[in-house]
């Protein structure tokens, strides 16, 4: 026995080392990851159809006959996210994850479907006044809160008014308010409401899509502290059960939900910040869904017998920006040359297995003009453009003019679950090969935004931009008076057309204006557009669910099989 103990110790250590060295992928050909791209349609202003009442699959209807799987209505679905909600009041939460969780507990006037196309929800239809300042919404009369109280126009009015007040008017709510330009709301009857805005807001529906309707009879009696810590009441498909900070939110199916009850009973959102732990939980069946799988772990997920990975193109676009107040980068030839210096295909293969094509302009579908081609990798074109602007290559192979080397410093900031710094290193190497003596540097995000806001970025920066799926939001990054126009680009032609867009309601005219703006951007190259980010999810094979392009873990339509 005495001789067994050290042996056991050695065995344990060896097992640990072996566990660490276990192959990431099986010897057999590994399955490829499904990349889901969304294909939204235009139609941001007028409802296209009656409420999209598509109840989730039930036991009788969900199971595909060929697999003979049977849905489990009493199942628990557990979703592991990096973070969950911060408190119980959605107006004082700002994260994307929190937005998804609250969306499972509340209802909105309109909603984005899985193709990020707007659909009616609590509002069945709506009209806009001639001057564009009054929106009249007609509400469903069969929506109830969890306590059975009907959702009426009074609740909508109360919600819109509440979000203007302190302490709710912060973070994302503040952002929504700046988009909303809310003036007042008038209740016409219990199921009709007029919403007045201070200026015409053609993209209003994309803003109110994020505004969850709160029950006036509950919240008007609560202090902000009580609303944050003590209670929650909604009309969404899942009722609140419990919340443990930084740990989990437990929800339970609301059978009275107007679109029909969910196909499973309990929904748990867990906060698991470490990606490897999420992967381990998925493998052991501890959770059914995990978010933000690092690209490096894709093969691990696909090798699991009980799970697979799904990658979803989301709406966040990465680009390299220029400091347009610098005389060097105010030269369009330099900007175009740097666009031509990027060999994106190589980076795409290395980081995204070829699934993140380069963008020509940083605009999301469906407003993106797909006819515009990204500037091709062309070193001869780089030479031609730089020479035309009076730059010559010095002995070291770098561009030089008036004794000054073209040596852009490029700032990037820290972001969880992102390989952006590694990608920037590759971009810098490519720029160096094209004669631009680029140097990257890394900052904490707050320090980076401070630098951007104070116009202290000397040369260039790499940044992501996530907006709604309405083209105007994406374009606001380049509007002269926008705080997020970090490069301070200004183009009078752009400003003129953009001003028209701000007050134009007709969808087809908006599309034409947005295409016109993209032509201006494309020709003047104020940025180097890169790619649309990809969110990878790991999903248990017994769960029928697809991720949402908005990046929210919306589980209402999921079906779990026995």
């Amino acid at each position: 026995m005495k001789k067994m103990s050290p042996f056991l110790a050695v065995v344990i250590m060896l097992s640990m080392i072996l566990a660490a060295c276990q192959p990431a992928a099986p010897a057999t050909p590994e399955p490829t990851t499904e990349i889901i791209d969304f294909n939204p349609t235009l139609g941001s202003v007028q409802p296209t159809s009656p409420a999209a009442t598509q109840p989730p699959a039930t036991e009788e209807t969900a199971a595909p006959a060929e697999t003979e799987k049977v849905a489990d209505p009493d199942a628990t679905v557990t979703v592991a996210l990096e973070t969950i909600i911060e408190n119980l009041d959605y107006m004082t939460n700002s994260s994307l994850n929190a937005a998804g969780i609250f969306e499972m507990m509340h209802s909105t006037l309109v909603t984005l479907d899985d193709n990020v196309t707007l659909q009616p929800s609590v509002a069945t239809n709506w009209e806009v006044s001639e001057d564009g300042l009054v929106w009249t919404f007609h509400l469903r009369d069969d929506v109830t809160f969890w306590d059975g109280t009907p959702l009426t126009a009074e609740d909508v009015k109360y919600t819109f008014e509440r979000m203007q007040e302190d302490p709710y008017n912060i973070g994302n709510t503040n952002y929504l308010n700046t988009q909303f330009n809310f003036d007042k709301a008038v209740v016409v009857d219990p199921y009709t409401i007029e919403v007045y805005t201070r200026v015409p807001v053609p993209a209003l529906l994309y803003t109110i899509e994020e505004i969850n309707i709160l029950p006036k009879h509950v919240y008007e009696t609560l202090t902000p502290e009580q609303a944050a810590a003590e209670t929650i009441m909604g009309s969404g498909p899942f009722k609140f059960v419990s919340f443990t900070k930084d740990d989990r939110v437990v929800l339970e199916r609301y059978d009275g939900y107007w679109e029909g009850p969910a196909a499973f009973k309990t929904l748990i959102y867990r906060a698991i910040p470490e990606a490897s732990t999420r992967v381990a939980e998925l493998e052991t069946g501890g959770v059914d869904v995990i978010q933000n799988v690092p690209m490096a772990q894709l093969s691990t997920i696909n090798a699991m017998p009980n799970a697979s990975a799904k990658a979803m193109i989301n709406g966040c676009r990465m680009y390299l920006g220029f400091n347009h107040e610098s005389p060097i980068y105010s030269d369009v030839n330099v900007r175009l040359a740097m666009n031509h210096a990027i060999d994106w295909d190589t980076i795409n293969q290395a980081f995204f297995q070829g699934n993140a094509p380069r963008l020509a302009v940083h605009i999301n579908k469906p407003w993106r003009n797909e006819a515009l081609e990204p500037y091709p990798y062309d070193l001869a074109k780089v030479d031609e453009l730089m020479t035309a602007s009076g730059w010559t290559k010095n002995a070291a192979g770098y561009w030089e003019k008036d004794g000054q080397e073209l040596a852009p410093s490029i700032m990037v900031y820290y972001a969880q679950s992102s390989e952006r710094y590694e990608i920037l290193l590759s971009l810098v190497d490519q720029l160096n090969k094209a004669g631009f003596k680029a140097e990257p540097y890394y900052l904490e995000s707050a320090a980076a935004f401070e630098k951007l806001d104070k116009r202290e970025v000397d040369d260039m920066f790499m940044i992501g931009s996530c907006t709604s799926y309405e083209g105007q939001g994406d374009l606001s990054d380049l509007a002269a008076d926008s705080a997020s126009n970090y490069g301070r680009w200004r183009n009078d032609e752009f400003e003129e057309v953009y001003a028209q867009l701000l007050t134009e309601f007709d969808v087809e005219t908006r599309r034409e204006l947005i295409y016109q703006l993209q032509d201006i951007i494309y020709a003047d190259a104020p940025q180097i557009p890169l790619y649309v980010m990809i969110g990878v999810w790991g999903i248990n094979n017994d769960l029928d669910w697809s991720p949402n392009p908005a990046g929210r873990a919306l589980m209402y339509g999921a079906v779990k099989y026995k």
Partner: protein
Amino acid sequence: MTQYIIRRLLQAIIVVLGVTVAAFSINFLAGDPTYVLIGNMRGMTQEDIQEFRHRMGFDRPVIVQYLDWLGKAVRGDFGTSMKFKQNNWQVIAERFPATLQLAVSAMLLGLIVSIPLGVVAAVNRGSFWDRASMVLALIGQSTPSFWMGLMLMLLFAVTLGWLPVSGRYEGVRSMILPVMTLSFYDIARNTRVIRGSMLEVLGEDYIRTARGKGAKPRTVLIVHALRNALLPMVTLIGMDLGSLLGGAIVVETIFAWPGMGLLTVNAINGKDLTLLQACVTLFALIFVFANLLVDFAYTWLDPRVRLK
């Protein structure tokens, strides 16, 4: 003795004041705190940003901000968490028991395992047991806890399926992996300390005298040698509390253990500055207080300290 205690208390107060400066400085670590709290400026104008800065009091001189903050902190008011919309002490009070549970368990496990290991290694100096325990100590001290945690998780949760991967919902079973991870370094370090201390004590005259008086080997070992060899452990236990709380930041993140460590990490990621200040101050106060207790205990256990 009284003089010594007063001197140590004064020193502790100076350290705590230093800690408050460090904690307050968190506001400015990443530049202007306005940008830390605002995050994304999409849709905001310069006027909005200025108004926010004024509302938060960040446009006042730094010394005024510090004194204001210190005055409140002394009264135990660390403000409201930006994230949780709750008093920071209340948030900490909810989370502290989870971390204490881990830290105390890890400390006990560390002592239970390391004392026999150290004694056996010292008594059998140069033997296989001595070498094996020293190799184990070397591995334990040089292995980062995040790696050790993931390896234990892979082995016991994923491969063998004996224990849950993460969380705090399966009682003792949930505790095993985080506690093992957290105590691994302590076991290694304590084993080395006890071994060294035992070797020193075993060479003392009074051990020879005890043996000469005919005391049984076990009595010599436990009553005469171990009792004195454990003196350095008093210091280590005090320091342990600090290192275990610090180590909990990594371990709690890996095992999704909702304690102070995870709270601190999320306060950093979520830019919850007031909560972070409260966490840092609490960690530092615990560390200072534990060391103060160790010093007092030392003067009681070993009179030579107060005589010096």
